[in-house]
């Protein structure tokens, strides 16, 4: 028995929505109008039951181009969000295109934020290409492959929290592909050696 099972890169989850989930759902509903995204990092383990909170929700996005990013920026500002700096041109060219992340949060609560990076490396692009659709009621969120997360946390990050996240995912997911975890490990190690 396992709590979650992915079939054809899709999974339906029956869970109560936390305040972190609410922020993620609301913010990503805006972002997905402009580009493809994939949630990565610790929030994946938390979404699937890990008993800890987080302040940063990490996502990779497909490069939307400056013009589209400008429209995304305008909508986020109109809806009460704040970003790392208040200049869309610099956010795009000096941060995102320079491989730096930008942060997005609701005005007045900077603690909880979405950390956004353009996917550039093969593993980052793969996180978007092979993302899984997670359905909660009529909402869909997109997450990077679980095997990739386990490999990254266990073999690259290796902190106690990361090892715990990896172990949690390994227990709650049914039929995880061990060969795929190993495959991801090689890709990550190869990227980090460079």
């Amino acid at each position: 028995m396992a709590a979650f099972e992915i079939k054809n890169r899709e999974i339906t989850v029956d869970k109560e929505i936390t305040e972190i989930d609410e922020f993620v759902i609301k913010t990503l509903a805006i972002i997905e109008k402009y580009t493809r995204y994939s949630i990565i990092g610790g929030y994946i383990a938390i979404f699937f039951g890990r008993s800890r909170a987080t302040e940063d929700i990490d996502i990779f996005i497909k490069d939307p181009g400056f013009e589209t990013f400008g429209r995304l920026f305008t909508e986020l500002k109109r809806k009460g969000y704040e970003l790392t700096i208040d200049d869309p041109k610099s956010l795009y060219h000096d941060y995102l295109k320079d491989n730096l992340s930008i942060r997005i949060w609701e005005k007045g609560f900077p603690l909880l934020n979405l950390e956004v990076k353009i996917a550039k490396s093969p593993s980052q692009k793969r996180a978007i290409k092979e993302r899984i659709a997670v359905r909660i009621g009529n909402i869909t969120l997109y997450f990077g492959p679980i095997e990739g997360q386990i490999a990254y946390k266990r073999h690259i990050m290796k902190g106690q929290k990361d090892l715990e996240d990896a172990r949690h995912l390994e227990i709650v997911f049914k039929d995880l592909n061990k060969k795929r975890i190993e495959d991801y490990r090689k890709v990550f190690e190869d990227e980090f050696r460079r």
Partner: protein
Amino acid sequence: MNSEDKQRMEAVERWADYVVNNRDWSRQQKIFIDAQIRNARTIGLTRKQVEYIREGQIRKSR
């Protein structure tokens, strides 16, 4: 892994087993997470204070 980390990992595994075997896991998780977020909202940290905390966390993890 030292004994403290080992104990933590055992607690993580116990909870993961609970998630697998009990339907009310998300109700319990919601109580736990929402309480932390509400506390954080009540404290009302500024962006500068958040950055200071974050830098401290990064230093600690190195």
